[in-house]
């Protein structure tokens, strides 16, 4: 579905992503794990068109994305749930969701999409008229995911959805990711919480200082001693 | 310890060299009244802009009212020196101007420094306009007609020496505990407070210091140009100083010097373009900002200490 080949991304003089290649097949959950500053978020931002690659190709359904503007990428079916949530403060929960559907022209099906989001996240329905800025961290994370879902994405990019969440929320979020995937959305998941991420992923890649170090199925990586040592905190 | 002494000596040497150079050129007739005028204007602008750079660049307070404090210094000199026409009278007037400017800065600063960003800019702009309108309507300031025939008590040498002193004091301010405190507040006010810094007090210190230098600049302006009027100190005057600061690089004292010189020279050259002058000037302004968004020098500083050290300058 999505192929990234020899991707290089620079911030000025700093090279954050160095020749990274990976691919995602339709229907999968693929996870990207790695230490802080490994370049995970940078890759996601580049796929979404917020950043421009220095070199390399990003191909999505036979279409090359590296020169396409961000809104067109959303239109093509890729939605991102950004790191740090980035909900729109000052707008209500419902308006946030409306903006998620900004590019949708199929007004008839919108009601169904709201229904779907509210099914995944019942708390959002309760809060739909509340200013999004006053939601708690967990609720904001749900809103960010809900907003991305409103675009009816074929591929959803999730950047550390569990960051800063209470353990009980983390479990819930992972369950919901699986549900979203089961409903037909392909998922690229970035996680610090490698154990949980790998256990729900079909495949995973390990990123270290801008390079892909390892790849394999979720189970393989979970069992890999090197991964355990570095990213799973030894024996946990 | 040695590097510090060496660096200080280099600076002192540079300043003395500058003085002798100008003096020599003046003696040789290469610097005529016209060029002297330009140099003095640059010098006064440096004094004004350094103070504003301290406020904007280092303490991160966006003030748009610098001309108001300049007006106070200028009027102190304009009012006092015609009666006490001595050099002593001039310095007395400068001192009084600085004191009044400090008081005014406290009155303006204590309430308004709580405001953030553009709101502070608008409030300080308003305060400066209030100062100007008071001057415009008072008897002692001779209203809109302004004051002329002010005794010429400041020569280029006075301006040069005071410019050096102001620069040294400002740089010393920046490279001290006070300077670090105001920069910390600029970077993150909440964190600075959590480190035990009384943010209001430090912000006020920078604001008042800047206002005092503005008054010094105003005082020199009055004594050199010998004519002042309220319209010299309007919003556009504050903006002119702001332009120097931003063009040079917010947070770079060296940049302020460079920008004051570049703009001073540009302004003089443009006199040859008659009516087109302001059009060229505005285009130049826009283009410089687009191609050098961080100002001519960014936050870079000329430093002699650095040359003595082994390590490479920090990179962005």
């Amino acid at each position, binding site marked *: 579905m999505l192929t990234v080949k020899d991707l290089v991304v620079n911030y000025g003089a700093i090279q954050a992503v160095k020749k990274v290649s990976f691919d995602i097949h339709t229907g999968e959950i693929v996870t990207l794990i790695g*230490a*802080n*500053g490994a370049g995970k978020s940078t890759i996601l931002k580049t796929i979404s068109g917020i950043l421009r690659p220095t070199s390399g190709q990003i191909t999505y359904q036979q279409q090359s994305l590296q020169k396409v503007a961000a809104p067109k990428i959303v239109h093509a079916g890729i939605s991102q749930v950004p790191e740090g949530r980035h909900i729109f403060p000052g707008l209500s929960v419902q308006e946030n969701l409306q903006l998620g559907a900004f590019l949708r022209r199929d007004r008839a099906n919108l009601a169904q999409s709201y229904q779907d989001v509210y099914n995944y996240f019942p708390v959002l329905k309760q809060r739909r008229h509340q200013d999004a800025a*006053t*939601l*708690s*961290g*967990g*609720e904001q994370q749900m809103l960010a995911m809900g907003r991305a879902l409103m675009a009816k994405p074929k591929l959803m990019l999730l950047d*550390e959805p569990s*960051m*800063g*969440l*209470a*353990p*009980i*929320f*983390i*479990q819930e979020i992972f369950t919901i990711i699986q549900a979203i995937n089961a409903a037909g959305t392909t998922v690229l998941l970035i996680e*610090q919480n*490698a154990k949980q991420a790998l256990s729900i992923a079909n495949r995973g890649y390990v990123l270290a200082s801008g390079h892909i170090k390892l790849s394999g199925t979720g189970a393989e990586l979970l069992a890999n001693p090197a991964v355990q*040592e*570095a*990213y*799973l*905190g*030894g024996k*946990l | 310890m040695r590097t510090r002494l060496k660096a200080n000596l280099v600076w002192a040497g540079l300043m003395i060299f500058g003085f002798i150079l100008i003096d020599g050129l003046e003696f040789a007739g290469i610097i005529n009244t016209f060029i002297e005028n330009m140099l003095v204007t640059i010098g006064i602008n440096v004094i004004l802009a350094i103070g504003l750079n301290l406020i904007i660049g280092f303490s991160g307070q966006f003030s748009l009212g610098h001309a108001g404090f300049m007006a106070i210094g200028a009027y102190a000199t304009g009012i006092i020196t015609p009666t006490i026409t001595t050099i002593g009278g001039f310095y007395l007037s400068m001192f009084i101007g600085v004191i009044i400017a400090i008081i005014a800065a406290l009155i303006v600063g204590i309430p308004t420094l709580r405001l953030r960003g553009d709101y502070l800019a608008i409030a300080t702009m308003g305060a400066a306009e209030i100062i100007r309108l008071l001057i415009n309507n008072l008897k002692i300031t001779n209203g809109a007609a302004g004051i002329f025939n002010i005794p010429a008590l400041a020569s280029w040498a006075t301006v040069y020496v005071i410019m050096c002193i102001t620069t040294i*004091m400002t740089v*010393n*301010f920046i490279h*001290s*505990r*006070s300077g*670090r*405190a105001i*920069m*910390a507040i600029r*970077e*993150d006010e*909440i*964190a*600075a*407070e*959590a*480190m*035990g*810094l*009384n*943010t209001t007090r430090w912000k006020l*210190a920078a604001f008042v210091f800047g206002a005092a230098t503005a008054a010094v600049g105003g005082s020199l302006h009055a004594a050199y140009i010998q004519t002042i009027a309220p319209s010299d100190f309007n919003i556009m005057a504050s903006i002119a100083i702001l332009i120097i600061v931003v063009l040079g690089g917010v947070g770079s004292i060296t940049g302020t010097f460079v920008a004051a010189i570049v703009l001073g020279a540009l302004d003089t050259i443009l006199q040859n373009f008659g009516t087109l002058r302001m059009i060229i000037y505005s285009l130049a302004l826009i283009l410089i900002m687009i191609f050098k968004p961080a100002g001519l020098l960014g*936050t870079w500083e000329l430093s002699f200490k650095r040359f003595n050290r082994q*390590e490479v300058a*920090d990179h962005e």
Partner: protein
Amino acid sequence: MSSPLLTATQLVKNFGGLNAISNVSVHFDQNELIGLIGPNGAGKTTLFNLLTGVTPVSAGTISLYTDHGVKTVNGQTPAQVAQAGVSRTFQNIRLFKELTVLDNVRIAMTNHYHEGFISSLLRTPKFYRTETAMTVAAEKLIAIFDLSAVADQPAKNLPYGVQRRLEIVRALATKPKLLFLDEPAAGMNPEETADLTRLIRQIQQDFHITVVLIEHDMSLVMTVVERLYVLEHGALLAEGTPREIQQNPAVIKAYLGGDA
């Protein structure tokens, strides 16, 4: 029982209609290592903000036991609270980004080294003396935490984990008796978290201070702290040792979840 350092009684905080903290009483003793946990939005950060003066309390008293006796610190500014010996880090890192590591630390020492305003403008010997003493002290602290190599780097250039460490060093430089850490391990991977765990223990022992930390990472909390408070909906849900808390059904239901 060790002697008390800070006690907060019946704290209340309302944001408009929202009751963010309701009748919370806590006490922290000398040389303790305490954890504060609870679901998102429970009011943990708000509690820190109340205790450090960042947010004024709606009701309740906060008393700090200093060398000079008991001091009521509610109603004081964050700067005053900091000067009284309470320091903190922030949930979202708040370093002085453009300034160097050394300056970040020296700024925190501002109140301990008075060089005099005039003497700093005139560069008197007193200025140089104080400045040198301060720099030496700062460099020592930086060395202890393995940051000497980056002392001249602007804070923004440091990797995330190092920034978190610097924030802790900076907080220590104010010479606190009580240190609040807000989610120090957020966004760290297990390896980095393990390093942090060691660091926190070391600080508490070497500097003889009390550390209170908010954390969602149970691997950190449960290994390091001696005592835990659990907040939910702005109220205390439980208090106890890690072992007690892990088995508390209410906490499991509200916070830890099924198989933690």
